[in-house]
């Protein structure tokens, strides 16, 4: 019983203790429930707006819409650069938990396509996780459909329909149109399309120079996505703005014809309207397939293009500089006329012209005429016709280099023809100042003689030659060279850059005789019929011929290696009674102007006369 009493006593004690402890714990539980309720009030009432935004950020994804690049049309409205649908796949790292698995699954779905996983993975690691990275490009429609059917197996991968550039006119247009390729590093900071994985920019030619007009503006859409980034529905959409279409003055048919006329020789052609300055053709040969670059080009293909000795990637019509050779003579003649040399002035050509040169053992430096035995007595007309070097040595020496330089610059030598092409070279018009500034030594008389026949330091481009001839032959009106069609022809009065029309008549006669009278340098390339062309050949040396070599007898061009042969040049205009076109043709290492360049120019003029002249009215209605 004692034990039992003790038990009851204890029991009473423990009952009270339990009740007390339970009361405390119950209060604690109520307190903790209150904490939970307060926490929920804080999240769901106080902070609800903040979380609403975060929730929207989660579910709403911003997707960019690629704009269509502007279309490039030729003079007659033929599309030269268009856009085609392209099926591609991109990956967004943050939208997959395991991108390697997704790529592996993709490989299983499309076993026939090759993916450079190593390169891709390193790019994925380097790129911000929300930026789409291209995995596959240019899938066929079948592959694209298969992928779409299996899309649930590849988290983070998105099939997209984009656009790819397609060039309709083949290699003849490659250089002037240019091509587009993915943005390079520098552009990624500044290009307005940079956020787009498929963004491309023009790399050269018109694609580059008008890139900001052609590229258009990005559009965007907001879509609701699930946690894997799959689109559930579209919430809103701002359409992209297509790039501006660009109309150029290139006549696609003519361009093709000129390219074919070059017949795969290394060279270039420029065809200009002498009144408007519009370029109807700017051709460079050999060329490449412009559509090579709409896919990523293989290294071996790229190397075969860059290692090719004929430099197919270079637009020779504006980027390659050549000594003008005798094609400069009309301008030297003009300088002479403007500086008081009479057209009647006669020079006796015995095949060479000697000047004192104390640096040489003999004390005399000899300048040779291209015709070893000499031309005999020549006046200006005859000198232009037969391209007598000795005549031009003599009159150059009389008027001096700076007078020649002034005239050449006035007609566009030594300056860019276009202001739009970064790849354009502006050539060199040598003068006393120029030499002092760029070489640092004073001018020497012998250099005036070389310059007088377009050799020495003189450098020019095909486009420059055609525009210089054009604005001389049109009566000396300054023209604005252009490749972009301007529908509001400027009616401004053109600036005259020719001092005296009589001078032009003298030069024109010389050039007409050079082509159309027996003994002229380009007589063999003359065009018979009502419409004729006239022009000046040029043969420019690419090496110095030593006197020893001369004594041993000059080697014929075709005995020399290709890259040691002379360039063949021709500048011409036509029809001669109402000049409309100026054409320049340069055949790299073609041997001679009369043999290589003039026949090509002749074909082009013939084509122009037959096919283009009478279509003048049609062209206007078309544009």
């Amino acid at each position: 019983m004692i034990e039992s009493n003790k038990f009851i006593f204890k029991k009473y004690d423990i009952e009270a203790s339990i009740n007390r402890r339970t009361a405390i714990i119950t209060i604690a539980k109520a307190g903790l429930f209150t904490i939970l309720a307060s926490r929920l009030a804080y999240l769901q009432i106080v902070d609800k707006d903040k979380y609403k935004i975060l929730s929207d950020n989660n579910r709403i994804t911003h997707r960019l819409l690629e704009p269509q690049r502007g279309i490039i049309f030729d003079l007659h409205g033929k599309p030269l650069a268009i856009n085609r649908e392209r099926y591609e796949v991109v990956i967004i790292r943050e939208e997959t938990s395991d991108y390697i698995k997704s790529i592996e699954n993709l490989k299983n779905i499309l076993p026939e396509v090759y993916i450079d996983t190593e390169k891709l993975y390193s790019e994925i690691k380097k790129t911000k996780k929300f930026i789409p990275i291209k995995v596959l490009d240019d899938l066929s429609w079948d592959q694209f459909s298969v992928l779409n059917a299996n899309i649930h197996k590849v988290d983070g991968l998105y099939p997209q329909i984009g656009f790819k550039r397609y060039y309709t006119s083949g290699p003849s247009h490659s250089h002037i149109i240019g091509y587009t390729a993915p943005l390079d590093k520098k552009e990624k900071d500044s290009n307005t399309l940079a956020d787009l994985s498929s963004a491309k920019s023009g790399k050269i030619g018109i694609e580059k120079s008008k890139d900001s007009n052609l590229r258009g503006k990005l559009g965007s859409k907001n879509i609701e996505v699930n946690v894997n980034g799959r689109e559930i529905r579209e919430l809103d959409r701002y359409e992209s703005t297509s790039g501006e279409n660009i109309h150029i003055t290139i006549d696609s048919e003519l361009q093709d014809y000129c390219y074919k006329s070059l017949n795969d020789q290394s060279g270039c052609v420029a065809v200009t309207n002498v009144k408007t300055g519009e370029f109807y053709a700017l051709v460079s040969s050999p060329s490449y397939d412009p559509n090579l670059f709409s896919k990523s080009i293989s290294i071996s293909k790229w190397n075969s293009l860059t290692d090719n000795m004929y430099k197919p990637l270079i637009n020779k019509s504006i980027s390659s500089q050549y000594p003008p050779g005798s094609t400069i003579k009309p301008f030297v003649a003009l300088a002479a006329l403007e500086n008081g040399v009479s057209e009647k002035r006669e020079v006796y050509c015995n095949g060479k012209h000697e000047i004192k040169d104390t640096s040489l053992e003999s004390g005399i430096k000899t300048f040779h005429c291209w015709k070893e035995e000499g031309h005999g007595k020549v006046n200006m007309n005859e000198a232009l016709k037969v391209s007598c070097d000795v005549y031009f040595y003599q009159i150059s020496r009389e008027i001096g280099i700076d007078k020649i330089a002034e005239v050449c610059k006035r007609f566009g030598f030594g300056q860019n023809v276009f202001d739009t092409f970064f790849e354009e070279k502006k050539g060199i018009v040598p003068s006393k100042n120029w030499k002092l500034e760029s070489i640092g030594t004073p001018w020497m008389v012998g250099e005036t003689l070389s310059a007088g026949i377009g050799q020495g330091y003189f450098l020019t481009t095909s486009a420059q030659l055609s525009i210089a001839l054009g604005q001389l032959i049109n009566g000396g009106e300054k023209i604005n060279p252009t490749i972009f069609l301007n529908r509001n022809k400027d009616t401004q009065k053109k600036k005259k850059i020719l001092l005296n029309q009589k001078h032009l008549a003298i030069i024109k006669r010389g050039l007409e005789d050079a082509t159309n009278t027996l003994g002229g340098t380009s007589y063999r390339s003359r065009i018979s019929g009502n419409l004729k062309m006239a022009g000046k050949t040029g043969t420019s040396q690419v090496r110095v011929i030593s006197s020893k070599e001369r004594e041993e007898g000059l080697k014929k061009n075709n005995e020399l290696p290709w890259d040691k042969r002379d360039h063949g040049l021709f500048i011409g205009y036509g029809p001669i009674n109402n000049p409309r076109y100026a054409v320049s043709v340069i055949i790299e290492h073609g041997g001679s102007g009369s043999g290589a360049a003039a026949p090509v120019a002749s074909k082009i003029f013939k084509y122009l006369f037959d096919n283009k002249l009478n279509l003048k009215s049609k062209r206007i209605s078309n544009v």
Partner: protein
Amino acid sequence: MFSGSKIEATISDKLRSINYLLLFLICTIFFIGILALYSISNGNFSEWPLRHLQRFIMGLIIFFIMVLLDLKIIFRFAYLIFIASIVTLMILPLVGDEINGAKRWISFAGFSLQPSEFVKYTLILALAKYFHSMEDYHDNFISKLIIPGFIIIIPVAFVVIQPDLGTALVIFLGGVSVLWISGLNYKYFISGILGFILSLPILWQYLKGYQKERVFTFFNPERDPLGNGYHITQSKIALGSGGVSGKGYMEGTQSHLNFLPEMQTDFIFTMFGEEFGFIGSIVLILLYMAITGISIRMALISKSLFSKFLSLGICSVFFIYVFVNIGMVTGILPVVGVPLPFISYGGSSMLAVMFGFGLLTNCYINYNTTLTKSSFI
């Protein structure tokens, strides 16, 4: 020899004495669970809601079995049940199914059970029997701390090595709540808390890398919003964006677009809160509070110490479940995988919690039953 009511209560008497308000509240919360799971399944009843319903029915069966069992028998086998549950825990490393690197499940006759869920309650059973049978209520140290402490540590240790820190914590706190009720001197609790704080740097050494990450993440979820902090960040976004009245039933964007992790299990409160807003969350919390309150009242009328300890312990385990789960999804507690009773999709937790409330109700309807001391099995 048992002492107690002379006339054995009939089954219908027992059924009549059940606290039907409690059962009603449980059913209400379960119904909310069905609603939530139906929303998660995008209106497909046959997936999660159906399984959940089946489990609840099984839970109800267990509940009624536990209610109808003779309390004396429960008392008698309390230690045995505890030991059996410990043995299942012990053999888990040998026969358990490994999921996500932890062996927590055991497959048995087509069912996959998580023994640790049941241990929460069997530990309370053992402790209740222990304190009921204790000889010297004045001996705070050996009788009230060392021996029960040992009983608690065994299951906790086995769950820790699974590893399942969250469940271990619930088991531990459940056990400690019984120690508290037993009247263990305050000074042990105070020194225990102090000791815990002081030993934190040492404990830290023993934490696994991902566990340390979780702690870091708890203090600053934005530190790694797509890794460890992802769950809690997304959960807060879901709750917060639900606002006062919610986004509407089946309209939760966070949940339906799968931004929420573990929606049907640990984070189900979040999806409910997103769709039903603050009003819905508070209603749910009030329901849980009501169950807790009613249970405590039911516990206190029991005459035997065993019943009291058992009922109060079960109340505490239930409360800890609710508090840790909601605390975790609202970002005031670290993320430890603890389900929300009656709502989270999960068989073991459903059966275990019904087992617990069955025991509690049994104590309630047999409040008059007195039990003798029993020193051992």
